[in-house]
């Protein structure tokens, strides 16, 4: 039954419905088949991830006027992993009633992979009186959708002497109600400071800024022209480029450039024998000292420390 086309299409519909509601934290179980429905499932999962990333980012870049609705997954379990308490948010995330969950072993809600992770890791953590960890767990909702997320797990001693308990927590962002109602405006406002709107970005501007983003990514080893020259080259002005980029990507052009250069450098430090000086130069850093400083600022240790 779970493999009939009809059943698989119904799952896809459920997933699309959740996406329409602004819930991008579900996914569909990938199948081992190689047919058209399987390709749709794969596509839906990937598109969902892309939208979710853009969506969380938007909240981050424009936090002043896009409040997020937060759904908390929160459970208390006994030392055997039986559910003692669930929040309403947990029930709605898993599309279950509280009575369906309470008394059940938590592992019944997980994929086989996560069941293995859970029993392996929790045996270790339950040996201590108190312990905290983060586990990546996949739950299966009542509708058959996947819910995969890092969960904060705390083991503690109950005060009434009933022994060890486990708290499991995770947070999901949802579009939900708190977003502005009414028709979406098709123009994006750039804010400088908190509320003042100074530049309006047209769809063409956004396209242009995306091009700048991709050009930077593709030329990480080269010197970046001045913002003025870059703006001129793109047929815009420095102000729009500068603040538009910040608005869309949540960071400044120079910070973005440095971040991406550092990401590539880190891989080279880890997996190659190239000297740190060579790596710095290959990735567009003017001096090894500057590279080392920027690297430490991002990763908390110097390139030399990472190599050791």
């Amino acid at each position, binding site marked *: 039954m779970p493999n009939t086309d009809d059943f698989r299409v119904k799952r896809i519909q459920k997933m699309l419905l959740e996406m329409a509601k602004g819930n991008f934290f579900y996914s569909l179980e*990938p*199948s*081992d*088949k*190689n*047919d*058209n429905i*399987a*390709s*749709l499932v*794969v*596509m839906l*999962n*990937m*598109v969902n*991830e*892309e939208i*979710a*990333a853009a969506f969380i980012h938007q909240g981050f870049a424009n936090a002043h006027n896009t409040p997020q609705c937060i759904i908390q997954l929160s459970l208390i379990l006994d030392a055997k992993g039986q559910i003692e308490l669930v929040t309403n948010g947990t029930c709605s995330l898993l599309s279950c009633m509280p009575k369906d969950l309470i008394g059940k072993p938590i592992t019944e809600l997980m994929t086989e992979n996560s069941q293995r992770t859970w029993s392996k890791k929790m045996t270790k953590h339950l040996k201590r009186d108190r312990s905290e960890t983060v586990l990546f767990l996949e739950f299966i909702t009542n509708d058959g959708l996947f819910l995969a997320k890092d969960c904060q797990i705390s083991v503690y001693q109950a005060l009434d002497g009933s022994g060890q308990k486990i708290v499991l927590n995770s947070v999901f962002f949802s579009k939900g109600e708190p977003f502005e109602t009414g028709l979406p405006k098709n123009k994006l406002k750039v804010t400088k400071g908190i509320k003042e709107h100074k530049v309006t970005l047209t769809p063409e501007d956004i396209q242009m800024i995306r091009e700048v*983003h*991709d050009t930077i*990514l*593709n030329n990480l080893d080269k010197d970046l022209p001045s913002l003025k020259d870059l703006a001129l080259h793109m047929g815009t002005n420095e102000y729009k480029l500068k603040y538009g980029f910040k608005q869309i990507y949540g960071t400044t052009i120079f910070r973005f450039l440095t971040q*991406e250069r550092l*990401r*590539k450098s*880190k*891989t*080279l430090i*880890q*997996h*190659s*024998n*190239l000297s740190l000086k060579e790596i710095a130069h290959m990735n567009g850093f003017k001096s090894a000292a500057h590279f080392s400083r920027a690297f430490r600022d991002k990763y908390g240790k110097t390139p030399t420390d990472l190599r050791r």
Partner: protein
Amino acid sequence: MTEALMHIIYKKDLCIDLRAAQLIVQDRMMLQNAREMPVLCDIREVRRVNKPARDYLALEGSQWITALAFLIDPPVTDVISSIYLGTHALTIPTRSFTKKSEALAFLKKHG
């Protein structure tokens, strides 16, 4: 791997997450030892690559590659490669093929 080409075959029903992607890149870079070369990526058996893994493969994981050909088996891996190519700005010539001979010809021309 031959002198001129890196051939990566992903195993059956493989779901690639960030950790898996990092290991794949690590192994590849160790084998290559700083030599740039074209890469043939046989993803026909792959069933899922999640976003952190895709982002990692597109930037950190694209170093020392002169050209990249995906060997795909539509429809599933066709979709995976199309979304990957469509959502990431890639610096190197990259294309998907269903026939190995065509993929090799492409790598020979661009690599």
